[in-house]
């Protein structure tokens, strides 16, 4: 009888000790809710899924160090299926039913348009994974971007082409979605850089073979070819129709999956991007190491953007007073400079992004891995 009582006492003591330790380590109380709308299915899944990986890692890291001013953070992630109408419905639920204090995402420009109409009306802080979109976004005061405007992406591509490759005649092969947006910016900049687009060919997003378009590009004799698409097909076709010129692509195609899909034709493609996991910049080392430990893979740009969005919101909420902060106060608190893993942002700038050309890292694909090039844009 005495033995069982002492056993019971010992067990209780251990349990109490464990609970106490847990209580000290975990942030406690009502979680601070942040909403996230991402494209986890549909054509945008190639963007949304890496973004989610970064966000979840950040949520874990934030809660591991005690949350925001001691309170846990909960990021509620919804899938918009790459459809802006669904993104809008999810936003209604997150903002008004779940009463999140800030929003992350979406992954695609059209969805951003739909969601920001709601967050802007409420003055709710929204950090999106799309570059500055239609002009109306300039009037939105609480919408911030952690990815560069397409104009900046275009400039990075042109900087490399004109300064490193010293080329003036460019052929473009692009898809009707992401590619079209980048092309519009390229067109706007061609005078400034003194380049000529000798051929511009497009294809639909799900195309099975674009050799005809690629052949047209080759026939125009460019010095450099831009391939802007979210599928490996055009890259393969370009090399197969014997386009031997250097190929420069855009950040949207810079992922290990696409490189794998392009196969042996991927070598020597140049990407203006931000995160080269094989050779990270000093300020990126911590994030890359954490990601590698958690997922056993190297992160790239969209994972880093996901991480940054959550970290920036956490610091903004803390600055605005933690759990008591109103959405509008949070939006105001974020409006400043942030050094993220992907890039350095300045949300007080006109384009609500503030990424500089100098943040870009130029990489070249070598045997399925990315190699950082010495070129730096200014």
């Amino acid at each position, binding site marked *: 009888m005495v033995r069982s009582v002492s056993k019971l006492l010992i067990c209780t003591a251990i349990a109490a000790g464990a609970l106490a330790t847990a209580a000290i380590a975990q942030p406690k109380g009502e979680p601070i809710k942040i909403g996230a709308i991402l494209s986890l*299915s549909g054509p945008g899944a190639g963007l949304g899924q890496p973004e989610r990986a970064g966000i979840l890692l950040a949520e874990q890291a934030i809660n591991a160090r005690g949350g925001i001013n001691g309170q846990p953070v909960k990021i509620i992630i919804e899938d918009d299926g790459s459809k802006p109408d669904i993104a809008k419905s999810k936003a209604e639920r997150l903002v008004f039913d779940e009463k999140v204090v800030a929003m992350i995402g979406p992954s695609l420009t059209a969805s951003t348009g739909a969601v920001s109409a709601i967050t802007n009306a409420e003055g709710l802080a929204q950090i999106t994974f799309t570059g500055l979109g239609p002009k109306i976004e300039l009037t939105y005061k609480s919408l911030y971007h952690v990815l560069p405007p397409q104009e900046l992406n275009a400039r990075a591509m042109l900087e490399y082409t004109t300064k490193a490759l010293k080329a003036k005649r460019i052929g473009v092969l692009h898809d009707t979605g992401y590619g079209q947006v980048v092309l519009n910016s390229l067109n706007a900049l061609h005078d400034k850089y003194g380049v000529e687009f000798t051929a511009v*060919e497009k294809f639909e997003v799900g195309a099975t073979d674009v050799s005809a378009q690629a*052949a047209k590009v080759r026939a125009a004799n460019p010095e450099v070819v831009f391939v802007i698409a979210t*599928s490996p097909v055009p890259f393969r076709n370009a090399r197969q129709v014997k386009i031997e010129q250097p190929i420069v692509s855009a950040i949207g195609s810079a992922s290990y999956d696409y490189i794998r899909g392009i196969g042996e034709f991927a070598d020597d493609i140049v990407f203006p991007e931000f995160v080269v996991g094989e050779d990270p910049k000093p300020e990126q080392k911590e994030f890359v190491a954490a990601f590698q430990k958690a997922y056993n893979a190297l992160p790239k740009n969209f994972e880093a953007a996901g991480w940054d969005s959550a970290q920036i919101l956490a610091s903004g909420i803390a600055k605005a007073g933690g759990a008591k902060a109103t959405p509008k106060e949070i939006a105001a608190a974020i409006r400043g400079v942030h050094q993220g893993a992907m890039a350095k942002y300045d949300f007080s700038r006109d384009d609500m992004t503030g990424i500089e050309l100098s943040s870009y890292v130029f990489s070249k694909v070598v045997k399925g891995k990315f190699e950082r090039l010495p070129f730096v844009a200014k």
Partner: protein
Amino acid sequence: MVLSLWIQAILSGVTNGFVYGLIGLGIAVVFRGARIINAMQGDFALLGGVVAYLLVHNLGWPLPAAFLAAMLSGAVCGMLVERLLIRPTARRQGTDDSYLLVTLGGAFAVSASVLLYFGRDSYVLPGIGGDQSVDVFNAAIRVHALALIVIGTLVVIALRWFYRGTRLGQAMLAASIDPDGAQTIGINVPLVRTLTFGLGGLVGGLAGMLVTPLINLHYEMGLLLTLKGFAAAVLGGLTSPFGAVFGGLVLGLVESLAIVTVSSGYKDVIAMTILILIMIVMPQGLFGRRGRMGG
């Protein structure tokens, strides 16, 4: 315009055309045997490609063996679709639209499963002859594409022999034209229907294995392929495998010629307009029997 550009356009058009035609072929086979438009045909191809990929990459099987496995898995899938989707619909007096919708649901299901278990990436399958291509006057066509064209043609010939020369083929035709009459003379109509879908699945799996080295395996490719295959099949008259391949060629060539002569942006508008014109001018399709107006 440079000769090599024209040649590239033709090569590209023929390659794409055979891709559409292979899917259209499967749609024609199913329609010929069961009078049902199978919206899952492109997804049979996706499944065939997935099975082949898993066998080649994870288990190290040689390509020919994976080939056979892809066809077999397509056939099994086709038969399962008939038993689990089509038959219950028929038993409850489904209309033509019900069959279309139920196979559409099946297509969504396959696509969603591939996304779930495979992820959103594209996967590469090695082709016949690896990545080599053949040069034709400065234009290029992949060795694999040539193999696809040859195999596609062989399939059409094989199907013709099957329908004309074998008892099963004849039974399929009989069961589709007059089910009651066929049943009366001893043909097991339900079994034949299942086998029809099996054949459609077989052709689909074959198509998938042939097509994926060119376009990469991707969970969304099913429905896109089905749309183009449907267009090819309808152009060909809906019941003729040969017609489907020919219809696919017409579509592929119109597309690529539109790209090089007009503009790549408007290629679909031109292709679709020509499609509609062909349908208006030739109501029985390019190879359908006279009197059958568009099914």
